[in-house]
Protein backbone atom coordinates (compact mmCIF):
# COMPACT_ATOMS: atom_id res chain seq x y z
CA UNK A 1 0.00 0.00 0.00
CA UNK A 2 1.44 3.35 -1.04
CA UNK A 3 1.91 6.24 1.35
CA UNK A 4 -1.21 8.36 1.90
CA UNK A 5 -1.26 11.47 -0.24
CA UNK A 6 -2.62 14.83 0.91
CA UNK A 7 -5.80 14.24 -1.09
CA UNK A 8 -6.51 10.98 0.68
CA UNK A 9 -5.92 12.57 4.10
CA UNK A 10 -8.17 15.50 3.22
CA UNK A 11 -10.89 13.21 1.92
CA UNK A 12 -10.77 11.01 4.98
CA UNK A 13 -11.16 14.11 7.15
CA UNK A 14 -13.98 15.36 4.95
CA UNK A 15 -15.94 12.09 4.81
CA UNK A 16 -17.06 12.07 8.48
CA UNK A 17 -18.57 15.53 8.01
CA UNK A 18 -20.47 14.36 4.94
CA UNK A 19 -21.76 11.27 6.69
CA UNK A 20 -22.75 13.37 9.71
CA UNK A 21 -25.00 15.52 7.52
CA UNK A 22 -26.31 12.43 5.77
CA UNK A 23 -27.11 11.02 9.21
CA UNK A 24 -29.04 14.19 10.05
CA UNK A 25 -31.13 13.88 6.89
CA UNK A 26 -31.77 10.19 7.62
CA UNK A 27 -32.67 11.03 11.23
CA UNK A 28 -35.13 13.63 10.02
CA UNK A 29 -36.58 11.11 7.58
CA UNK A 30 -37.11 8.55 10.34
CA UNK A 31 -39.00 11.11 12.41
CA UNK A 32 -40.99 12.54 9.52
CA UNK A 33 -41.97 9.24 7.89
CA UNK A 34 -42.89 7.53 11.15
CA UNK A 35 -45.03 10.57 11.97
CA UNK A 36 -46.76 10.43 8.60
CA UNK A 37 -47.41 6.70 8.96
CA UNK A 38 -49.05 7.39 12.31
CA UNK A 39 -51.23 10.00 10.53
CA UNK A 40 -49.37 12.83 12.21
CA UNK A 41 -47.51 15.58 10.37
CA UNK A 42 -44.04 15.21 11.83
CA UNK A 43 -41.42 17.97 11.97
CA UNK A 44 -42.51 20.72 9.59
CA UNK A 45 -40.64 21.14 6.35
CA UNK A 46 -42.04 24.66 6.09
CA UNK A 47 -43.08 26.34 9.31
CA UNK A 48 -46.28 28.46 9.07
CA UNK A 49 -45.50 32.15 8.63
CA UNK A 50 -46.95 33.28 11.96
CA UNK A 51 -44.60 30.99 13.91
CA UNK A 52 -41.39 31.70 12.03
CA UNK A 53 -40.23 34.20 14.63
CA UNK A 54 -40.04 31.48 17.25
CA UNK A 55 -39.50 28.33 15.25
CA UNK A 56 -37.43 29.28 12.22
CA UNK A 57 -38.21 28.50 8.60
CA UNK A 58 -37.66 24.75 8.34
CA UNK A 59 -37.25 21.75 10.62
CA UNK A 60 -35.24 19.75 8.09
CA UNK A 61 -32.17 19.82 10.33
CA UNK A 62 -34.10 18.87 13.45
CA UNK A 63 -31.52 16.32 14.74
CA UNK A 64 -28.80 18.97 14.26
CA UNK A 65 -30.73 21.46 16.37
CA UNK A 66 -31.16 18.81 19.05
CA UNK A 67 -27.42 18.28 19.10
CA UNK A 68 -26.57 22.02 19.19
CA UNK A 69 -29.04 22.58 21.97
CA UNK A 70 -27.63 19.72 24.00
CA UNK A 71 -24.08 20.93 23.42
CA UNK A 72 -25.00 24.27 25.00
CA UNK A 73 -26.53 22.66 28.07
CA UNK A 74 -25.05 21.94 31.44
CA UNK A 75 -24.07 18.29 32.01
CA UNK A 76 -24.84 16.78 35.36
CA UNK A 77 -22.71 14.02 36.85
CA UNK A 78 -24.42 11.60 39.22
CA UNK A 79 -22.51 11.56 42.51
CA UNK A 80 -22.54 7.76 42.73
CA UNK A 81 -21.19 7.14 39.23
CA UNK A 82 -17.69 6.06 38.27
CA UNK A 83 -16.89 9.49 36.95
CA UNK A 84 -13.94 8.84 34.65
CA UNK A 85 -15.62 6.01 32.81
CA UNK A 86 -18.97 7.78 32.77
CA UNK A 87 -17.43 10.86 31.20
CA UNK A 88 -15.11 9.16 28.74
CA UNK A 89 -17.30 6.43 27.26
CA UNK A 90 -19.31 8.74 24.91
CA UNK A 91 -16.01 10.06 23.57
CA UNK A 92 -14.73 6.51 22.97
CA UNK A 93 -17.87 5.83 20.95
CA UNK A 94 -17.42 9.12 19.09
CA UNK A 95 -13.83 8.31 18.10
CA UNK A 96 -14.82 4.80 16.95
CA UNK A 97 -17.62 6.18 14.87
CA UNK A 98 -15.65 9.02 13.27
CA UNK A 99 -12.90 6.64 12.20
CA UNK A 100 -15.49 4.19 10.90
CA UNK A 101 -17.09 7.05 8.93
CA UNK A 102 -13.74 7.78 7.30
CA UNK A 103 -13.60 4.14 6.15
CA UNK A 104 -17.18 3.97 4.87
CA UNK A 105 -17.47 5.06 1.26
CA UNK A 106 -20.02 7.76 0.51
CA UNK A 107 -21.11 7.00 -3.06
CA UNK A 108 -17.89 5.05 -3.87
CA UNK A 109 -15.71 7.95 -2.69
CA UNK A 110 -13.36 6.94 0.09
CA UNK A 111 -9.63 6.60 -0.01
CA UNK A 112 -9.42 4.55 3.14
CA UNK A 113 -11.99 2.05 1.84
CA UNK A 114 -9.47 0.76 -0.66
CA UNK A 115 -7.36 -0.47 2.26
CA UNK A 116 -7.25 -4.25 2.07
CA UNK A 117 -9.07 -5.03 5.34
CA UNK A 118 -11.38 -2.02 5.48
CA UNK A 119 -14.53 -4.14 5.92
CA UNK A 120 -13.05 -5.79 9.00
CA UNK A 121 -11.97 -2.41 10.36
CA UNK A 122 -15.46 -0.93 9.94
CA UNK A 123 -17.14 -3.91 11.60
CA UNK A 124 -14.71 -3.77 14.52
CA UNK A 125 -15.15 -0.02 14.99
CA UNK A 126 -18.93 -0.37 14.88
CA UNK A 127 -18.61 -2.95 17.63
CA UNK A 128 -16.93 -0.26 19.72
CA UNK A 129 -20.13 1.82 19.89
CA UNK A 130 -22.38 -0.57 21.82
CA UNK A 131 -19.34 -1.49 23.90
CA UNK A 132 -18.86 2.15 24.95
CA UNK A 133 -22.60 2.49 25.65
CA UNK A 134 -22.49 -0.60 27.86
CA UNK A 135 -19.56 0.84 29.79
CA UNK A 136 -21.25 4.22 30.18
CA UNK A 137 -24.55 2.74 31.29
CA UNK A 138 -22.87 0.47 33.80
CA UNK A 139 -20.74 3.32 35.13
CA UNK A 140 -23.74 5.57 35.69
CA UNK A 141 -24.75 3.59 38.79
CA UNK A 142 -28.40 3.97 37.93
CA UNK A 143 -30.56 0.83 37.94
CA UNK A 144 -32.04 1.86 34.59
CA UNK A 145 -28.58 2.36 33.16
CA UNK A 146 -27.43 -1.04 34.38
CA UNK A 147 -30.52 -2.83 33.07
CA UNK A 148 -30.09 -1.01 29.78
CA UNK A 149 -26.43 -2.01 29.58
CA UNK A 150 -27.25 -5.61 30.27
CA UNK A 151 -29.90 -5.62 27.54
CA UNK A 152 -27.54 -3.83 25.18
CA UNK A 153 -24.92 -6.53 25.78
CA UNK A 154 -27.40 -9.34 25.14
CA UNK A 155 -28.81 -7.67 22.05
CA UNK A 156 -25.31 -6.95 20.76
CA UNK A 157 -24.46 -10.65 20.94
CA UNK A 158 -27.62 -11.37 19.00
CA UNK A 159 -27.36 -8.85 16.15
CA UNK A 160 -23.59 -8.87 15.72
CA UNK A 161 -23.57 -12.52 14.54
CA UNK A 162 -25.82 -12.12 11.45
CA UNK A 163 -24.19 -8.75 10.68
CA UNK A 164 -20.71 -10.21 10.53
CA UNK A 165 -21.72 -13.43 8.76
CA UNK A 166 -23.70 -11.52 6.14
CA UNK A 167 -20.84 -9.11 5.56
CA UNK A 168 -18.38 -11.98 5.20
CA UNK A 169 -20.59 -13.91 2.81
CA UNK A 170 -20.40 -10.85 0.55
CA UNK A 171 -16.65 -10.71 1.05
CA UNK A 172 -16.52 -14.37 0.03
CA UNK A 173 -18.45 -13.67 -3.14
CA UNK A 174 -16.26 -10.69 -4.01
CA UNK A 175 -13.13 -12.52 -2.90
CA UNK A 176 -11.92 -9.45 -1.03
CA UNK A 177 -12.18 -7.76 2.37
CA UNK A 178 -11.74 -4.28 0.95
CA UNK A 179 -14.99 -2.31 0.66
CA UNK A 180 -13.72 -0.50 -2.42
CA UNK A 181 -12.94 -3.80 -4.09
CA UNK A 182 -16.41 -5.13 -3.28
CA UNK A 183 -17.92 -2.04 -4.92
CA UNK A 184 -15.72 -2.46 -7.97
CA UNK A 185 -16.69 -6.12 -8.34
CA UNK A 186 -20.36 -5.17 -8.32
CA UNK A 187 -19.87 -2.30 -10.76
CA UNK A 188 -19.15 -4.64 -13.62
CA UNK A 189 -21.77 -7.25 -12.77
CA UNK A 190 -25.02 -7.43 -10.87
CA UNK A 191 -25.26 -5.89 -7.35
CA UNK A 192 -25.04 -8.40 -4.51
CA UNK A 193 -28.60 -7.57 -3.46
CA UNK A 194 -29.73 -9.68 -6.41
CA UNK A 195 -26.95 -12.28 -6.23
CA UNK A 196 -27.27 -12.90 -2.49
CA UNK A 197 -30.62 -11.60 -1.19
CA UNK A 198 -30.48 -13.82 1.92
CA UNK A 199 -27.43 -12.04 3.24
CA UNK A 200 -28.99 -8.67 2.36
CA UNK A 201 -32.09 -9.36 4.45
CA UNK A 202 -29.99 -10.62 7.36
CA UNK A 203 -27.78 -7.53 7.15
CA UNK A 204 -30.77 -5.16 7.08
CA UNK A 205 -32.36 -6.80 10.13
CA UNK A 206 -29.04 -6.65 11.96
CA UNK A 207 -28.76 -2.92 11.13
CA UNK A 208 -32.22 -2.33 12.59
CA UNK A 209 -31.04 -3.94 15.81
CA UNK A 210 -27.87 -1.87 15.77
CA UNK A 211 -29.75 1.40 15.35
CA UNK A 212 -32.25 0.46 18.09
CA UNK A 213 -35.28 0.85 15.85
CA UNK A 214 -38.65 -0.42 16.93
CA UNK A 215 -38.81 -4.17 17.21
CA UNK A 216 -35.33 -4.17 18.74
CA UNK A 217 -35.22 -0.98 20.78
CA UNK A 218 -35.05 -3.13 23.90
CA UNK A 219 -31.99 -1.38 25.42
CA UNK A 220 -33.52 2.08 25.14
CA UNK A 221 -37.10 1.09 25.80
CA UNK A 222 -38.57 4.39 26.88
CA UNK A 223 -41.37 4.15 29.47
CA UNK A 224 -40.09 0.68 30.40
CA UNK A 225 -36.52 1.46 31.47
CA UNK A 226 -36.28 5.22 31.28
CA UNK A 227 -33.71 5.63 28.51
CA UNK A 228 -31.52 2.58 29.06
CA UNK A 229 -27.77 3.20 29.12
CA UNK A 230 -28.21 6.93 28.43
CA UNK A 231 -30.57 7.51 31.36
CA UNK A 232 -28.10 9.45 33.46
CA UNK A 233 -26.55 11.36 30.60
CA UNK A 234 -27.59 14.93 30.01
CA UNK A 235 -26.30 18.04 28.34
CA UNK A 236 -22.99 17.81 26.52
CA UNK A 237 -22.42 14.09 27.07
CA UNK A 238 -25.89 13.32 25.73
CA UNK A 239 -25.07 15.52 22.72
CA UNK A 240 -22.03 13.33 22.04
CA UNK A 241 -24.25 10.26 22.22
CA UNK A 242 -26.73 11.84 19.81
CA UNK A 243 -23.85 12.61 17.43
CA UNK A 244 -22.75 8.98 17.67
CA UNK A 245 -26.25 7.81 16.82
CA UNK A 246 -26.42 10.21 13.87
CA UNK A 247 -23.11 8.87 12.56
CA UNK A 248 -24.24 5.30 13.14
CA UNK A 249 -27.29 5.66 10.89
CA UNK A 250 -25.17 7.09 8.07
CA UNK A 251 -22.47 4.43 8.44
CA UNK A 252 -24.85 1.47 8.59
CA UNK A 253 -26.84 2.70 5.59
CA UNK A 254 -23.65 3.57 3.70
CA UNK A 255 -22.22 0.14 4.42
CA UNK A 256 -25.40 -1.55 3.23
CA UNK A 257 -25.30 0.41 -0.02
CA UNK A 258 -21.60 -0.31 -0.48
CA UNK A 259 -21.96 -4.03 0.13
CA UNK A 260 -25.25 -4.76 -1.61
CA UNK A 261 -26.00 -1.92 -4.02
CA UNK A 262 -22.55 -1.22 -5.47
CA UNK A 263 -22.29 2.07 -3.57
CA UNK A 264 -24.83 3.65 -5.87
CA UNK A 265 -22.93 2.79 -9.02
CA UNK A 266 -25.10 2.03 -12.01
CA UNK A 267 -23.37 -0.06 -14.69
CA UNK A 268 -22.79 1.92 -17.83
CA UNK A 269 -22.94 5.33 -16.14
CA UNK A 270 -20.25 7.68 -14.90
CA UNK A 271 -18.86 7.44 -11.36
CA UNK A 272 -20.18 10.92 -10.58
CA UNK A 273 -23.71 9.71 -11.29
CA UNK A 274 -23.46 7.46 -8.22
CA UNK A 275 -23.98 10.43 -5.83
CA UNK A 276 -27.71 10.98 -6.51
CA UNK A 277 -28.26 7.23 -6.70
CA UNK A 278 -26.51 6.82 -3.38
CA UNK A 279 -28.75 9.44 -1.76
CA UNK A 280 -31.87 7.93 -3.28
CA UNK A 281 -30.97 4.42 -2.17
CA UNK A 282 -30.09 5.67 1.30
CA UNK A 283 -33.45 7.38 1.69
CA UNK A 284 -35.17 4.25 0.40
CA UNK A 285 -33.43 1.97 2.89
CA UNK A 286 -34.25 4.35 5.74
CA UNK A 287 -37.85 4.38 4.49
CA UNK A 288 -38.01 0.58 4.69
CA UNK A 289 -36.47 0.60 8.14
CA UNK A 290 -38.94 3.26 9.28
CA UNK A 291 -41.84 1.20 7.96
CA UNK A 292 -40.62 -1.72 10.08
CA UNK A 293 -40.07 0.71 12.98
CA UNK A 294 -43.65 1.97 12.81
CA UNK A 295 -45.28 -1.35 12.10
CA UNK A 296 -43.87 -3.30 15.03
CA UNK A 297 -44.21 -3.24 18.78
CA UNK A 298 -41.18 -3.86 20.94
CA UNK A 299 -39.78 -7.36 21.52
CA UNK A 300 -38.96 -8.51 25.01
CA UNK A 301 -35.22 -9.07 25.35
CA UNK A 302 -35.47 -12.89 25.34
CA UNK A 303 -37.83 -12.79 22.34
CA UNK A 304 -35.42 -10.52 20.48
CA UNK A 305 -32.52 -12.82 21.27
CA UNK A 306 -34.33 -15.98 20.14
CA UNK A 307 -35.72 -14.26 17.07
CA UNK A 308 -32.29 -13.05 16.04
CA UNK A 309 -30.88 -16.55 16.36
CA UNK A 310 -33.84 -18.16 14.65
CA UNK A 311 -34.31 -15.89 11.62
CA UNK A 312 -31.44 -13.56 10.63
CA UNK A 313 -28.63 -15.82 11.77
CA UNK A 314 -30.03 -18.75 9.83
CA UNK A 315 -30.53 -16.45 6.83
CA UNK A 316 -26.99 -15.16 7.10
CA UNK A 317 -25.53 -18.68 7.36
CA UNK A 318 -27.54 -19.84 4.34
CA UNK A 319 -26.29 -16.71 2.59
CA UNK A 320 -22.73 -17.78 3.36
CA UNK A 321 -23.43 -21.30 2.08
CA UNK A 322 -25.01 -19.78 -1.02
CA UNK A 323 -21.91 -17.63 -1.49
CA UNK A 324 -19.62 -20.68 -1.37
CA UNK A 325 -21.90 -22.59 -3.72
CA UNK A 326 -21.96 -19.64 -6.07
CA UNK A 327 -18.20 -19.46 -6.11
CA UNK A 328 -17.99 -23.19 -6.74
CA UNK A 329 -20.54 -23.38 -9.55
CA UNK A 330 -19.95 -20.03 -11.31
CA UNK A 331 -16.25 -19.38 -10.85
CA UNK A 332 -16.20 -17.27 -13.99
CA UNK A 333 -18.78 -14.89 -12.59
CA UNK A 334 -16.65 -13.68 -9.71
Amino acid at each position, binding site marked *: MELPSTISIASSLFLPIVSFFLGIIYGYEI*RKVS*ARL*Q*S*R*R*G*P*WLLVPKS*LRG*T*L*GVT*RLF*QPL*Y*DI*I*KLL*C*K*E*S*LLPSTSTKGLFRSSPYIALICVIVAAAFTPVATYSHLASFELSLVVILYLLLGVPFAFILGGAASASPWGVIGSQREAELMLAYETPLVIAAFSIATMADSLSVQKIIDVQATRLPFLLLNPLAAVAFLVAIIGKLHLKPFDVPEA*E*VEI*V*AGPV*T*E*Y*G*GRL*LAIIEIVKTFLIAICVGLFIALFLAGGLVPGYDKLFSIPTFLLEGLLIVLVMTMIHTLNPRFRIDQALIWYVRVPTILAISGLVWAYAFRHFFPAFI
Partner: protein
Amino acid sequence: MRLGLKEKARAYSPWIFHAHAGGCNNCDIELAACFAPRFDLERMGIQLRNNPRHADIFLVTGPAPKQIAPILRRVYDQLPNPKVAIACGSCAITGGVYNRDDKKPNYAIGGPVEKLIPIDVLVPGCPPRPESIIQGIMLALEKLRHR
Protein backbone atom coordinates in the same frame (compact mmCIF):
# COMPACT_ATOMS: atom_id res chain seq x y z
CA MET B 1 -33.14 41.30 17.50
CA ARG B 2 -30.57 38.90 16.03
CA LEU B 3 -30.32 35.59 17.77
CA GLY B 4 -27.29 33.35 17.92
CA LEU B 5 -27.41 29.72 16.81
CA LYS B 6 -27.38 28.70 20.46
CA GLU B 7 -30.53 30.64 21.29
CA LYS B 8 -32.22 29.47 18.12
CA ALA B 9 -31.41 25.82 18.69
CA ARG B 10 -32.84 26.05 22.19
CA ALA B 11 -36.18 27.18 20.88
CA TYR B 12 -36.09 24.75 17.96
CA SER B 13 -35.85 21.52 19.92
CA PRO B 14 -37.36 21.71 23.37
CA TRP B 15 -37.85 18.41 25.15
CA ILE B 16 -40.58 18.16 27.72
CA PHE B 17 -40.59 16.34 31.01
CA HIS B 18 -44.04 15.87 32.42
CA ALA B 19 -44.32 15.76 36.20
CA HIS B 20 -47.63 14.51 37.50
CA ALA B 21 -48.13 16.00 40.95
CA GLY B 22 -51.43 14.65 42.19
CA GLY B 23 -54.68 15.91 40.74
CA CYS B 24 -57.33 14.19 38.72
CA ASN B 25 -55.26 13.07 35.68
CA ASN B 26 -57.26 15.21 33.29
CA CYS B 27 -54.43 17.58 32.35
CA ASP B 28 -52.27 14.52 31.73
CA ILE B 29 -54.79 13.21 29.23
CA GLU B 30 -54.83 16.56 27.44
CA LEU B 31 -51.05 16.57 27.38
CA ALA B 32 -51.12 13.09 25.88
CA ALA B 33 -53.52 14.47 23.26
CA CYS B 34 -50.91 17.14 22.46
CA PHE B 35 -48.53 14.42 21.32
CA ALA B 36 -51.21 12.35 19.60
CA PRO B 37 -51.98 12.78 15.89
CA ARG B 38 -54.55 15.56 16.16
CA PHE B 39 -52.39 18.13 17.96
CA ASP B 40 -49.05 16.69 16.96
CA LEU B 41 -46.41 18.60 18.94
CA GLU B 42 -43.55 16.90 17.13
CA ARG B 43 -44.12 19.18 14.14
CA MET B 44 -42.48 21.88 16.26
CA GLY B 45 -39.63 19.55 17.13
CA ILE B 46 -40.95 19.00 20.63
CA GLN B 47 -40.51 15.58 22.15
CA LEU B 48 -41.84 14.06 25.35
CA ARG B 49 -38.95 12.63 27.34
CA ASN B 50 -39.56 10.48 30.37
CA ASN B 51 -36.24 11.50 31.81
CA PRO B 52 -35.60 14.76 33.67
CA ARG B 53 -31.94 14.75 32.66
CA HIS B 54 -32.79 15.07 28.97
CA ALA B 55 -35.47 17.72 29.30
CA ASP B 56 -35.63 21.50 28.92
CA ILE B 57 -39.23 22.14 29.87
CA PHE B 58 -40.65 21.00 33.18
CA LEU B 59 -44.40 20.69 32.85
CA VAL B 60 -46.26 20.22 36.12
CA THR B 61 -49.86 19.18 36.47
CA GLY B 62 -51.77 18.81 39.70
CA PRO B 63 -51.94 20.57 43.06
CA ALA B 64 -48.78 18.97 44.54
CA PRO B 65 -49.98 17.11 47.64
CA LYS B 66 -47.70 17.14 50.68
CA GLN B 67 -46.26 13.72 49.90
CA ILE B 68 -45.08 14.68 46.44
CA ALA B 69 -43.95 18.24 47.23
CA PRO B 70 -40.30 17.49 48.18
CA ILE B 71 -39.95 15.02 45.31
CA LEU B 72 -41.19 17.62 42.84
CA ARG B 73 -38.45 19.99 43.94
CA ARG B 74 -35.87 17.22 43.65
CA VAL B 75 -36.94 16.27 40.14
CA TYR B 76 -36.87 19.93 39.13
CA ASP B 77 -33.26 20.16 40.32
CA GLN B 78 -32.36 17.18 38.14
CA LEU B 79 -33.06 19.12 34.95
CA PRO B 80 -29.86 20.61 33.58
CA ASN B 81 -29.82 24.37 33.02
CA PRO B 82 -31.23 26.22 31.10
CA LYS B 83 -34.75 25.14 31.92
CA VAL B 84 -38.23 26.56 32.26
CA ALA B 85 -41.21 25.34 34.25
CA ILE B 86 -44.82 25.40 33.13
CA ALA B 87 -47.71 25.11 35.57
CA CYS B 88 -50.42 23.40 33.58
CA GLY B 89 -54.01 23.51 34.80
CA SER B 90 -55.84 25.34 37.53
CA CYS B 91 -54.64 22.96 40.24
CA ALA B 92 -51.00 23.64 39.51
CA ILE B 93 -51.52 27.42 39.42
CA THR B 94 -53.63 27.98 42.51
CA GLY B 95 -54.81 24.66 43.84
CA GLY B 96 -58.12 24.88 41.99
CA VAL B 97 -60.92 22.84 43.52
CA TYR B 98 -58.61 21.52 46.20
CA ASN B 99 -58.72 24.89 47.94
CA ARG B 100 -61.03 25.35 50.87
CA ASP B 101 -63.83 27.87 50.54
CA ASP B 102 -62.74 29.70 53.70
CA LYS B 103 -59.23 30.32 52.26
CA LYS B 104 -57.55 28.25 54.97
CA PRO B 105 -54.87 25.82 53.75
CA ASN B 106 -55.98 22.35 52.82
CA TYR B 107 -54.47 19.74 55.16
CA ALA B 108 -53.23 17.54 52.29
CA ILE B 109 -51.96 20.09 49.79
CA GLY B 110 -48.31 21.08 49.89
CA GLY B 111 -48.81 24.14 47.85
CA PRO B 112 -49.72 25.39 44.58
CA VAL B 113 -46.65 24.56 42.52
CA GLU B 114 -45.38 28.15 42.65
CA LYS B 115 -44.51 27.65 46.32
CA LEU B 116 -42.18 24.76 45.50
CA ILE B 117 -40.42 25.65 42.26
CA PRO B 118 -40.03 28.85 40.22
CA ILE B 119 -42.75 28.92 37.57
CA ASP B 120 -42.33 30.70 34.25
CA VAL B 121 -45.54 30.13 32.34
CA LEU B 122 -49.09 29.63 33.56
CA VAL B 123 -51.58 27.62 31.52
CA PRO B 124 -55.06 27.97 33.08
CA GLY B 125 -57.94 25.68 32.33
CA CYS B 126 -59.46 22.63 33.91
CA PRO B 127 -58.19 20.88 31.88
CA PRO B 128 -56.54 23.30 29.48
CA ARG B 129 -57.28 22.56 25.85
CA PRO B 130 -54.36 21.08 23.90
CA GLU B 131 -54.09 24.31 21.88
CA SER B 132 -53.84 26.19 25.13
CA ILE B 133 -50.98 23.94 26.24
CA ILE B 134 -49.26 24.48 22.89
CA GLN B 135 -49.63 28.24 23.32
CA GLY B 136 -48.12 27.94 26.80
CA ILE B 137 -45.18 25.99 25.40
CA MET B 138 -44.66 28.65 22.72
CA LEU B 139 -44.51 31.29 25.46
CA ALA B 140 -42.08 29.10 27.39
CA LEU B 141 -39.82 28.89 24.33
CA GLU B 142 -39.52 32.68 24.26
CA LYS B 143 -38.33 32.54 27.84
CA LEU B 144 -36.06 29.56 27.24
CA ARG B 145 -34.20 31.36 24.45
CA HIS B 146 -32.94 34.02 26.81
CA ARG B 147 -32.04 31.81 29.72
